[in-house]
């Protein structure tokens, strides 16, 4: 944290960058808001800790349109999204200075609350301990138990695009879970069970569009669901079909482009496991068309804009 502040201050002072996109501390000890700092405002409130979970890459679309150069703190998993934005010409790389920052997995407040804690007044992180003070009493939790779900299946800890990076050998000390285990569990169900699972999940959707708006890949100038001329626009799930439709189409539009950053599931107010839709596509593409990780670089063709003459026929779906 201190190293980051120093580096940022240096780059701001020597004129390399004009602004800094980072996280700002909030009212509680855990709420972090993406924010832009500059020389004028100073770095007051800039924070980088276990609660800085938001993916900042999408903000660069707007930030890189502005004059001057913006420094961005880039966590490993968010850097894939940035590469995709570069690949799709959505950001101006020249106007961005990427400072890679290390990540030892983020802590999920929702998971802390799910242990039954409420009325939280303060959370202090000490090594592997998360000390929580609430109006109803104090508790200490093991950090490993309250890590974000997406961190439990982390791709790796490498920032894939950067101008400079700050290294750290701190790790969360956890054993990574199999990223596809949840998808496989669903695949193992009968179609009716799967249908019921998704019905119970998707019927919760309130069409707040948080998943779409937070997604670094969903960066359309105008989304098809907001565009009355597409014939499929809608603001609410009036029928259960529309719940399916919205999420199938969204997953499909980002298929082959989704970096699996997990933001969609994190921001969902109804906690719908939306990442399981994206991950299904990732799994299928990996299995049928070869392993591919979107955002590893800014050039490779994604599986849906490529083909081989020997590709599996769609009937491969029926035969399993």
């Amino acid at each position: 944290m201190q190293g980051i502040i120093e580096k940022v201050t240096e780059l701001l002072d020597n004129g390399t960058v004009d602004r800094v996109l980072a996280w700002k501390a909030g009212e509680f000890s855990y709420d972090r808001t993406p924010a832009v700092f500059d020389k004028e405002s100073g770095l007051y409130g800039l924070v980088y800790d276990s609660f800085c979970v938001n993916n900042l890459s999408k903000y660069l679309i707007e930030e890189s349109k502005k004059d001057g150069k913006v420094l961005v703190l880039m966590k490993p998993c968010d850097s894939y999204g940035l590469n995709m934005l570069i690949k799709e010409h959505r950001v101006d790389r020249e106007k961005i200075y990427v400072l890679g920052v290390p990540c030892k997995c983020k802590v999920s407040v929702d998971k802390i609350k799910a242990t039954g804690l409420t009325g939280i007044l303060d959370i202090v992180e000490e090594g592997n301990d998360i000390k929580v003070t609430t109006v109803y009493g104090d508790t200490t939790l093991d950090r490993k138990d309250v890590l974000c779900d997406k961190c439990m299946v982390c791709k790796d800890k490498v920032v894939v695009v950067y101008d400079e990076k700050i290294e750290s050998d701190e790790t969360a000390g956890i054993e990574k879970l199999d990223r596809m285990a949840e998808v496989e569990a669903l695949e193992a169900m009968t179609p009716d069970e799967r249908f019921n699972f998704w019905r119970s999940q998707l019927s919760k959707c309130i069409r707040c569009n948080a998943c779409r708006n937070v997604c670094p890949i969903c960066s359309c100038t105008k989304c098809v669901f907001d565009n009355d001329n597409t014939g499929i626009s809608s603001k609410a799930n009036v029928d259960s079909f529309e719940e399916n439709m919205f999420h199938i189409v969204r997953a499909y539009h980002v298929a082959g482009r989704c970096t699996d950053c997990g933001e969609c599931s994190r921001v969902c107010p109804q906690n719908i496991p939306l990442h399981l839709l994206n991950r299904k596509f990732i799994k299928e593409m990996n299995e049928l068309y070869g392993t591919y990780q979107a955002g590893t670089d800014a050039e490779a063709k994604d599986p849906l804009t490529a083909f081989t003459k020997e590709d599996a026929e769609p009937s491969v779906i029926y035969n399993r």
Partner: protein
Amino acid sequence: MLKFTSDQMSTLFSAISAMKTLYVPVEKGGEVTFGVWSETEKVRLDALKTVKSAKDLFFPQAETMMGFKMEGKNIEIQVPEEKMDEFVVFGVRACDAKSFEVLDNVFLAEPVDTYYALRRKSGIVICAACTRPEESCFCNVFGIDATAPAGDIVTWTVDGTLYWEAKTEKGEAFTAQLSEYLAEATAEEEAAVAAQNEAVKAIIAKLPYANLKVDGFTGDRMMEYFNSPKWAELYQACLGCGTCTFVCPTCQCYDIRDYDTGHGIQRYRCWDSCMYSEFTKMAGGQPRLTQLERFRQRFMHKLLYYPMNNNGLFSCVGCGRCVNKCPISMNIAKVIKALGDE
């Protein structure tokens, strides 16, 4: 004050649902929401906040207003019936109960929104006093007593016993229908209820947002707030999603849309969000072109425009849902603080 004589809530619920449709907080797909009670539903009276507020029952996220049917080249208009069976909603918190007042001011003022009015007339609100407020709560800021909600009937739960008090005529009448399950509470028991209420209020006073100041949001300072440079900083991270709006118990904006079913048109209305870029889009475009303007609109409306038109009643009830759910942790409490600092 009455008390419910059984320790099985399901006894009460089955009695109510024998008479009317009963909505209670139930868990569906891991989240708590108001749903129709049945023996098989997982009731979650312990949940402090449902994801969507009780507003959904009176002003549903989507509702059909009318239909048009085309037969050859003739058009037939189908208007829904203006009749509805009475229903009961149990477990409404003080904040949500207050939100009905905010909504009534909008929908029941002339011209009356008949769809909303019909639901309000048909619905009996049974409130549940809070026992375990959390850090995102700040209803007290708006003068709401979490232990004395404003419903047709108010209930308190102390040591597993449900205490009951009818507050309106509608509430009285309904209470009478349930007399066989209710008995007069003793003075001691009433004292226990009061004691618990005091304890809850003491907790609320300790919560981080308990001391937010909203006195400064007065109509005469409207332009000052409108032109505040703080907005530029506050809106910066806003994703423009509708989460805050859709979990908010007082947001009342809607869009009216026509859906072509292939056999005719269904005209329905659905919640809209002033955070959306397409909000109030008209032939000439939308009036608020930037996210800053849209962001500002939402809070200006909650804290200034609405109170100015409704005798100082804020259209925020401090439920804290937006505090919990905003993807970027921006919320009205932060706005109040930031603007209030001036």
